[in-house]
């Protein structure tokens, strides 16, 4: 939860922090910050009906950053002595071409985040390993009960408990405690020598009780088993351009890949994004409104504050089809002269801040989901996906279906094997002709990679119809 600073847990005083900040914020440095992080992550995993692996990792360190114009100087250290802080400060300010001339920084005001989106206290860290073990055992039993063709069940439960303190040269000293957990289930089904896998999972910035609410963990187990069994009877996917109906929730990965990355401010400042210069222009049909919202309680992509201490917010990216805004961190907002949106994120103290998404989703429309399916004569209905990827510069993106069906004569018929869908980011949403009233957010499994950094994110989507997209199957 949003707590009032925890500097003492890093063995430091405010004086140490101000002094390091003063040392890095030399004359030609526009902005400097220190990011202290301590993170405990734990995992238990099961396979072959045995919970046989447990891990626990502890890391702690500080990242020191200075920016001057477009330049960023960055150093990090896993030692937190005053001397190490000074050494890191000296390295970070190297880019400012002014080896001395320390400047007075405005004394930061101690703050706490104004929101508390994940009030779970230390619950996860204190959950006994035995309770996590029984959670996984219950999943194994449920998945095997679902169908005797389930031959193996793999499940893992991961938790992370992160304490951060951010001190900035523009006068902020703020801390947050960021819990995160995820339960993941994969089932292998086998029949007549054919094997197939199915996966399901979820989580968020939630307490352990989340997984038992409405027997959520057992539903995850059944969903993973169902997908594996379903795929046993899947036929080859079609190849070529066709209409595609995306189900609600996780298929929102479309938005993340097709437009989200392209709207991150850094690529647009550098004019290397296919969306550069499209602000105010039409990039989607007028029934599409898309937002990035870091303020949803308990969500995997949510944060009380971003990793620069800025409160997260709700940013309208596309409104009625028109491109309205980029998501920004301090560096890019300043250089571009556009609003700061609270999207400055980093994987850890070892990585630099980049503009990143939080929870990205399309608002609900007015169509009945069943009517959307009925509108398609021959096409694909895709309800679950694996990963996706995008080339920011030419805008081409892919995402890969892991559960999909043929639509024939307005009806969902046979399941098809996984296939990659490929399209062009600035064009694809102009082909959205129907948006359902059934907006769903994903279950909380998304991890986004950029520049080698992984951060947790969320996505969401109502059922939508895309009039044409290339489906990468094998059948003509």
């Amino acid at each position, binding site marked *: 939860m949003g707590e009032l600073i925890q500097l003492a847990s890093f063995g430091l005083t405010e004086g140490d922090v101000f002094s390091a900040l003063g040392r890095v914020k030399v004359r030609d440095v526009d902005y400097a910050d220190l990011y202290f992080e301590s993170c405990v992550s734990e995992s238990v995993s099961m396979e072959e009906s*045995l919970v*046989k*692996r*447990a*891990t*626990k*990792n*502890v*890391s*702690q*360190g500080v990242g020191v950053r200075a920016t001057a*114009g477009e*330049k*960023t100087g960055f150093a*990090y*250290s*896993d030692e937190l002595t005053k001397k190490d802080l000074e050494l890191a400060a000296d390295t970070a300010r*190297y*880019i400012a071409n002014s080896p001395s001339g320390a400047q007075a920084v405005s004394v930061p005001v101690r703050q706490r985040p104004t929101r508390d989106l994940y009030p779970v206290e230390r619950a996860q860290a204190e959950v*006994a*390993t*035995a309770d996590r*073990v029984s959670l996984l055992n219950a999943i194994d039993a449920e998945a095997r009960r679902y169908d005797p063709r389930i*031959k*193996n069940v*793999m499940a893992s439960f991961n938790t992370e408990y992160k304490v951060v303190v951010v001190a900035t040269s523009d006068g902020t000293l703020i801390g947050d405690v960021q819990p995160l957990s995820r339960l993941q289930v*994969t089932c*292998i089904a*086998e029949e007549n020598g054919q*094997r197939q896998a199915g996966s399901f999972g979820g989580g968020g910035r939630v307490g352990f009780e989340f997984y038992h609410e409405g027997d959520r963990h057992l539903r995850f187990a059944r969903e993973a088993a169902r997908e594996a069994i379903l795929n046993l009877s899947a036929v080859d*996917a079609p*190849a*070529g*351009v066709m209409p595609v109906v995306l189900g609600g929730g996780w298929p929102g990965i479309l938005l993340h890949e097709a437009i989200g990355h392209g709207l991150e401010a850094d690529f647009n400042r*550098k*004019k*290397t994004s*296919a969306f550069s210069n499209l602000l105010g222009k039409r990039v989607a049909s007028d029934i599409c409104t898309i937002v990035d919202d870091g303020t949803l309680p308990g969500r995997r992509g949510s944060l009380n504050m971003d990793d620069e201490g800025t409160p997260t917010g709700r940013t309208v990216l596309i409104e009625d089809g028109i491109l309205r805004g980029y998501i920004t961190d301090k560096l890019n907002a300043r250089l571009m002269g556009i609003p700061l949106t609270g999207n400055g994120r980093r994987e850890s103290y*070892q990585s*630099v801040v980049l503009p990143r998404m939080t929870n990205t989703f399309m608002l609900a429309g007015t169509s009945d989901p069943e009517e959307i399916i009925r509108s398609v004569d021959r096409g694909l209905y895709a309800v679950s996906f*694996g*990963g*996706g*990827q995008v*080339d920011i*510069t*030419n805008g*081409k993106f*892919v995402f*890969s279906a892991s559960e999909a069906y043929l639509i024939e004569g307005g009806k969902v018929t046979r399941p098809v*094997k*996984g296939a*990659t869908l*490929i399209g062009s980011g600035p064009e694809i949403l102009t082909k959205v002709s129907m948006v359902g009233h059934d907006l769903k957010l994903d279950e909380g499994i998304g991890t986004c990679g950029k520049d080698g950094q992984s951060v947790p994110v969320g996505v969401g989507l109502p059922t939508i119809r895309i009039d044409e997209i*290339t*489906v*990468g*199957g*094998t059948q*003509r």
Partner: protein
Amino acid sequence: MNQAIQQRDGYSQLAMDLLAKAKRDGATEADIIIADGETFSVQVRLGAVDRLTKAREKHLGLRVFVGKRSASTSTSDFSADSLNQLVAETCILAKAVVGDPVSGLPAADQMAGERPDLDLYDSTRLNTEQQIDLAKRVEAAAMSSDERVTNSEGGDFDSSSGRVVLGNSHGFLGEYQSSSFSMAASPVATDPETGAMQRDSWYAVQRKFAKLDSPEAVGLEAARRTVRKLGARKVATQRAPVIFDAEMAGSLMGNLCSAVSGYSLYKGASFLAGQLDKPLAPEYVTVYDDGRVVGGLGSRPFDGEGLPTRRTTVVERGVLKSYLLDTYSGRKLGMASTGNASRSVGENPSVGPTNFYLAPGTKTAQEIIKTVKQGLYVTDLIGFGINMVTGDYSRGAAGFWIEGGELAYPVEEITIAGNLKEMFAGIEMIGNDLVFRGRIASPTIKIGEMTIAGS
């Protein structure tokens, strides 16, 4: 120097002390890995420094066994109190999980004895200015070679060095140092007529600084790869031969490497389960994993459990001859470890490649392209559309359309699909252009036919 030696000896001593402490806390067996290193990274963009990063880091990973039960932990906090607490907690954690009949350290008599010097370390130290200059040169070379190169995602130079100390309760104690130097350029080109942009990149990576390609050569290649993508279009949906350039063929070797990993196999999560000694590909296909290539990017004297690395023939004349195994996955399959335990600090060992590669053939890439009347030459793949359980393969692709044995025009926004088993069986030609730019490498590969989805 003296300090460095002292610290190194310090880590060996620390490893022994913690192993002894683990035994006192109830562990029957244990192993420990300590890694530390320095990294430097600079990115320049349009001739000015964009980002400069410098750090030292260290990490310690502990794995204990209490009978057949096991847990792993790690920390970056090396204070005595914290480490003692870690050892105690790890033993408690191990007691909380279920015993696994095949768990445990490798047998004591299997541990790596001789530790060859694989020449993995270069003591060359470049100062900050020298590294910035190299990054500037690689970007400048990319920017200046063609006027259609209009923008840049940057020029990069990175250097790192570090060492690994591994010890276990059999009394094994091993250590090695390694280093790496790399540079890359990522130019953006603009089509003068349509304004459409393309980006690509090129890179070089070596353990020895002196062996790196010149920044000018790397930058020039990055520009060539970027500019040639301008004007890319879709092609019609069809079945056709597909040539994977060396980089993309390397990704297919990566897929093979995952499929022969012991962990995927014993879980039934690989399409190659039960395929040992069966034909996988034509008889001119031979694949090795060789942990002892001198100066190799994937080389190491011993693996993540302290077993000797070696050369394993994975595919011999088209027949799948060996999986890649560590002790645990080997025991699950009733086989011996192949010395492929990969250990990232804080994780249980898993299986990873050392230097994994397809043995080269005799034809140049040009000669292979000449054999295709109508087909695709793939230079980019995106997405994760591979089902390792079934081998089903569907990925986004870009490259060039081949007409009459020549690269006719660039293509994009298409997918290629098939099944990895059929793709390996369908390898028709192998190039002579094997170059290691990572742990996994391949020469150019031609596959007889795949489904291309486009317009």
